């Protein structure tokens, strides 16, 4: 197939075949990362701007390295030391970056829909690196990439996403990618953080507040961090209680399939959502997710840059 999207804004609007094409492309980029020379000239002479209005270290580094390995020039723009602090609007900031001939703008923003907003008036390609509680498409893609690589398929697998679902853009992007590729998704966590309404997002989505039920027979457990920074009020009494009721510990590991994958988008809170022994255990693929994230982001930059259609995001 031919990729013809100019932007990567969300996974909800991607077709299953587009997701698969991106994952296949990422597989070849992963092979590039295993060579002694890890760089290819695909984006030589192009300028990529990391516009991170909301702080992030791992995603920014991953995107930065991905762009560098494609031979692009990279500018990092963080909100703390920028004109945004002086009252400039996001639109003006983005237009200024475009006036410097930026070819691709990677946006991390606290407001849902911010990348879609930019894509409406920018000539540059826009990549969503996380917008509010809406989506984090490259995280969803790297999670599915890791599952597909380890399990050989996605279709028919039981994937449990455990933790803060309500505030999680990672959960939403995972939900779209997994269900489009035919997985069964179980969402679990405290009732205040896992609304029943998620069941209406897509077919094959189940919500449960019972952690034992969510873990039984699971092929993949994706643990999400409790996002203190995004919660308006405390949604559960204490992290100690969360660990006791929902944390993945050795006793609960007995419920999952013996070859189940343990995933986490990081940063992990040891002893809260995951016990150290499990995070460092043989079933954990947490660090492989980081490696795969680089390949997925290289694929996203490569494909989006080649995307020629004048798609207007609605």
């Amino acid at each position, binding site marked *: *197939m*031919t*990729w*013809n999207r100019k932007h990567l804004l969300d996974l909800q609007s991607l077709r299953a075949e587009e997701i698969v*094409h991106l994952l*296949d*492309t990422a597989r*070849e*980029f992963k*092979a*590039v990362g295993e*060579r*002694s*020379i890890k760089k*290819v*000239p*695909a984006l030589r002479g192009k300028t990529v701007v990391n516009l991170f209005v909301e702080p992030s270290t791992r995603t920014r580094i991953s995107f930065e390295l991905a762009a560098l390995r*494609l031979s692009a020039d990279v500018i990092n723009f963080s909100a703390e030391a920028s004109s945004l602090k002086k009252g400039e609007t996001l639109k003006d900031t983005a237009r200024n970056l475009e006036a410097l001939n930026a070819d691709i703008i990677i946006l991390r923003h606290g407001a849902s829909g911010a990348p879609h907003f930019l894509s409406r008036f920018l000539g540059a390609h826009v990549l969503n690196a996380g917008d509010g509680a809406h989506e984090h498409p490259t995280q969803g893609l790297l999670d599915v990439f890791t599952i597909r690589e380890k399990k050989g398929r996605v279709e028919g697998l039981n994937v449990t996403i455990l933790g803060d679902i309500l505030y999680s853009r990672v959960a939403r992007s995972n939900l779209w990618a997994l269900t489009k590729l035919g997985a069964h998704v179980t969402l679990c966590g405290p009732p205040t953080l896992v609304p029943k309404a998620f069941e209406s997002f897509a077919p094959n989505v189940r919500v449960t507040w019972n952690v034992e039920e969510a873990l039984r027979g699971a092929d993949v457990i994706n643990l999400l961090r409790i996002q203190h920074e995004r919660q308006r009020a405390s949604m559960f009494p204490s992290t100690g209680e969360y660990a006791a009721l929902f944390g993945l510990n050795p006793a609960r590991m007995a419920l999952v399939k013996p070859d189940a994958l343990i995933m986490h988008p990081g940063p992990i809170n040891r002893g809260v959502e995951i016990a150290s022994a499990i995070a460092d255990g043989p079933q954990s693929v947490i660090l492989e997710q980081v490696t795969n994230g680089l390949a997925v982001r290289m694929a996203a930059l*490569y*494909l989006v*840059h*080649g*995307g*020629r259609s004048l798609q207007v995001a609605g």
Partner: protein
Amino acid sequence: MTTPLLDAPALRRTLGRMAREIAAANPGTGTPVLVGIQRGGVPVARRLAADLAGILGRPVACGSLDVTFYRDDLDQRAAPTVHPTEIPGDIQGRTVVLVDDVFFTGRTIRAAMDALHEFGRPSRVQLAVVIDRGHRQLPIRPDVVGQELFTTLCQSVLVRCAAGGEGTDDGVFLRESPPAASSKTPATAVSLSHAS
């Protein structure tokens, strides 16, 4: 319209002759490494490697190379699909034979040489192609050629070659592409004598 140029037995004989020419061009102890250019060159390289192994009486390493990222027209097209690159072992100081199905402008080969050198510095790089259809745009020419062919720019050449051994629908075909363009330029295919 598609015109068959070589049938399966003729393609097999052509590949056999190309393998003998590769062997003759590489006397001595070092076994060349064959690297097929994605996608059309990969099955051809596998067939040549099998033939060459038979001639030399020892195994011949065979890999694949995707040159997409090294193309000079990457900017002018939708992102092409990327296929696997597998370079067998260390090519440092070895003789590498790049293999492609059709030699046309030479731009793919230029990209392939760039891509190949990311994996090491071969002592020699040679080029083997099934069909040399002319229209070179760069000072690059193949060392081993299955068949030279006069073509117009409105034609395309298709080499169908099963990787695992002779396939029933193997062959080389000439296609007349865009009818609007080909009506202006009379399409004639004249097969030349072998390059050897």
